[in-house]
């Protein structure tokens, strides 16, 4: 187990080890849904929520069920099942008790199951052997970092939509270049704190 203060992990996962800018996770929905600020923010909130809950659940399942029985190799299947089941459950609970939030986030929830950031954070959590508090801080921080990145990107893209861009660069290539520049900016944070 590595000895890093949970709060350091929290800050680092937002800025220096940002899910998008340094680990390239969740790029698919990042490119597809970052056209307008409100939708991007909605997805960001949904991802943060699902990320924090599923990673903690996966932590419990991994250390209390898979490790004692020597079933670590089933990790992938179990994690993806936990994520899919949790998203489904969250959808049903939200529809029943928080219908306004459900209608605001509704369309994004099914998308989240296939967002690689969710599975990625769980896998990183296992690979880096975090303890419970570290896992919690890491997952919340990663979610906030992801939401921050997609919201910032949506802001830039909505400004860019009126500019004339060479035809071949429109859409995904422009988004990638902007992401690259933003990633360069985020490298500036790397002197602050560092988790591998």
């Amino acid at each position: 187990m590595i000895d890093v203060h949970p709060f350091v992990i929290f800050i680092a996962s937002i800025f220096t080890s940002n899910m998008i800018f340094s680990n390239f996770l969740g790029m698919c929905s990042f490119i597809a849904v970052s056209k307008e600020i409100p939708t991007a923010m909605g997805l960001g909130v949904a991802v943060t929520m699902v990320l924090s809950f599923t990673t903690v659940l996966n932590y419990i399942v991994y250390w209390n069920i898979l490790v004692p029985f020597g079933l670590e190799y089933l990790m992938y299947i179990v994690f993806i099942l936990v994520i899919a089941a949790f998203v489904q459950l969250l959808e049903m609970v939200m529809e029943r008790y928080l219908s306004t939030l459900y209608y605001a986030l509704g369309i994004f929830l099914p998308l989240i199951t296939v967002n690689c950031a969710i599975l990625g954070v769980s896998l990183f959590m296992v690979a880096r052997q975090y303890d419970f508090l570290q896992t919690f801080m890491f997952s919340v921080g990663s979610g906030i970092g992801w939401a921050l990145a997609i919201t910032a990107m949506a802001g830039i893209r909505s400004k860019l939509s009126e500019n004339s861009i060479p035809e071949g660069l429109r859409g995904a290539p422009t988004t990638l270049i902007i992401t690259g520049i933003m990633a360069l900016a985020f490298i500036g944070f790397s002197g602050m704190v560092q988790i591998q």
Partner: protein
Amino acid sequence: MSLKKDAKKIFKKGILYDNPILVQVIGICSALAVTNRMMNSLIMGIALSFVTAFSSMTVSLLKSRTPRHIRMMVQVLIISAYVIIVDIFLKAYMPDMSKALGPYVGLIITNCIIMGRAEGFAQSNPPVLSLLDGLSSGFGYTLVLLSISLVREILGFGTVFGVDVMPQSFTKWTLMVMPPSAFFILALIMWAAYNLRIKKEKEGVEKK
């Protein structure tokens, strides 16, 4: 005879006209993450081709037996089973590579290329064709990965597949090893591919 023709068409589509990364813009997470070394990209490409091909085939074999509304779940389970095989294989025979790729092997499960092929092709086509279709998408993916990593490895480390190619006096570009360069290079390759496609289409129109 028709199988051969179909196979040729499928490969052309998977590699050029319908390349998963350049045209459909899916599955780029891992494309960016593992491209700092050519060896990593090659292994990742082979792993993904294997998983895509066989999971497409399995999905296609089971398509008449899977209830429609839980087919996504079934597909995910099939894919994860193959990914576990790949992961165990890498851990047993290439421990260094397994460490270098880290969690990105597991992330093959959420790679949209595989789901896309299973849902878009294997669901309504016979097993052999689905296998070929999966392979062709995998090859298209591998090619893009290799071209990104070629640029990054030459400029970042001065090597190709770990062999020195640049003169001693060459200054290594540290930026090429860091994440942002992957974004820039992929964008440039996408741009080039787009222009190539447009040019081909225009030529085709003039010929007619």
